[in-house]
């Protein structure tokens, strides 16, 4: 039974099924397995890369801050559409900087709620959490 410390292992151990010496199945607690810890690390490294790339696109004026917050909150257009109630084609428009800058406060507020950030932070691409 592997016992490699994972970010989950600090909070809870997880139940795994394994056979004992007589071949009978028992449950054991594991704090993690290196193979899957690195799988999760790989996923997060990719997310960080996507965030950095999105941020640069916003700074270059190629996309609105929505793109950055979508990567930050791991949302695709479909999830964002479900949270905000906007149609997907509307979100695609709002992803353009020139459309975004004229959005009403009411619409911005919807996005801010979906991303769980303040409207000002949404405009300035500021995040307060690590």
């Amino acid at each position, binding site marked *: 039974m592997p016992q490699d410390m994972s970010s989950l292992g600090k909070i809870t151990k997880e139940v795994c*099924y394994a056979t004992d010496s007589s071949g009978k199945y028992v449950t054991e607690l594991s704090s993690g397995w290196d193979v899957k810890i690195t799988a999760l690390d790989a996923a*997060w490294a990719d997310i960080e890369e996507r965030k950095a790339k999105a941020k640069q696109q916003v700074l270059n004026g190629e996309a609105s801050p929505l793109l950055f917050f979508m990567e930050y909150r791991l949302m695709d257009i*479909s999830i964002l559409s479900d949270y905000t109630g906007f149609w997907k084609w509307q979100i695609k428009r709002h992803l353009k900087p020139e459309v975004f800058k004229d959005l009403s406060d009411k619409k911005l507020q919807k996005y801010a709620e979906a991303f769980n950030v303040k409207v000002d932070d949404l405009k300035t691409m500021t995040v307060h959490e690590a």
Partner: protein
Amino acid sequence: MKLDFEHIQSAHCESGVTSSLLRKSSLNKITEPLAFGIGAGLFFVYVPIIKINNGPAIAFRTFPGLIFKRTCNALGIPVVRKKFRSKEQAENYLKQQLDEGNPVGCQVGVYYLSYFPREYRFHFNAHNLIVYGKEDDNYLISDPVMENPTTLTSYELERVRFSKGALAPRGQIYYPKFNGTITDEQIKKAIKAGIKRNVNQMLRIPGRFAGVRGIRYTGEKIKKWRDKLGLQKAGLYLAQLVRMQEEIGTGGGGFRYIYAAFLQEAHVYLQQDELLEISKLFTQAGDLWRTAAVQAAGIYKGRIGSQEDFNLMGDYLIEISVLEKEAFLALKNIKWH
């Protein structure tokens, strides 16, 4: 208010919730492996046209909600399941059930699940937990994958019950409506029904993407990932495969070990010695899934990455496909006493 309810940690959320909700009426007999097996939980599917978190959509278990439903159906127990439009109604209904003394299962999203570590919070909406009481503004939560019971404020619980995206739970609540006692005869019958259903699900499901054929199909696809996606993206795809297979909730080896445990427990009820032999085949399958995961890790860690390495990875899955086909055929051919 706190209902008489004992938190039991399990490997997989839905079979854990099912087992816990049936604990009293089955006098502890419906264990997690029995719930998983009777609910015909073992599966494989790869849907190439869908992307989840920018990676492949792969599942090792059956569609969310089915394990609870099938287990109760097979045992002849009526199920109550409700979805809600309004958050207020959803909370009122929950309170009402608690007042009536029913611990209830809830489907939730994990993205805003406050007690989960941040690294585990993706937009995954098919997590399951039990609510068994309320003290002040805190709901008492038994999350089967956690070692200890926990709490969520009413706002936190509302947020996860109404998470959005694929498989959005829409406040879904469920529980068995049954006050009697489940007999051994019921369990025996349910085990046979569960095995039969799982055989069909793995061997007879149409198309190339699911069941034992789906495992082979995925193995063949993996061999092409390096050329098609490039090394880095192919590595991320493999990492996603490994997470679906090994992450919390699977019991390890893509649920194959839980299923092997189920067959051993089935043997206690049905005394068919084939079950023990077939259980070993599923242990082998679980081990082989883990060997494949180690190979995948070599690739996403950047230690290996030649076409040969991808071929070997794909071949592992093809080998697993053959092995699981053999195991399910053996289950299919059991002559029940």
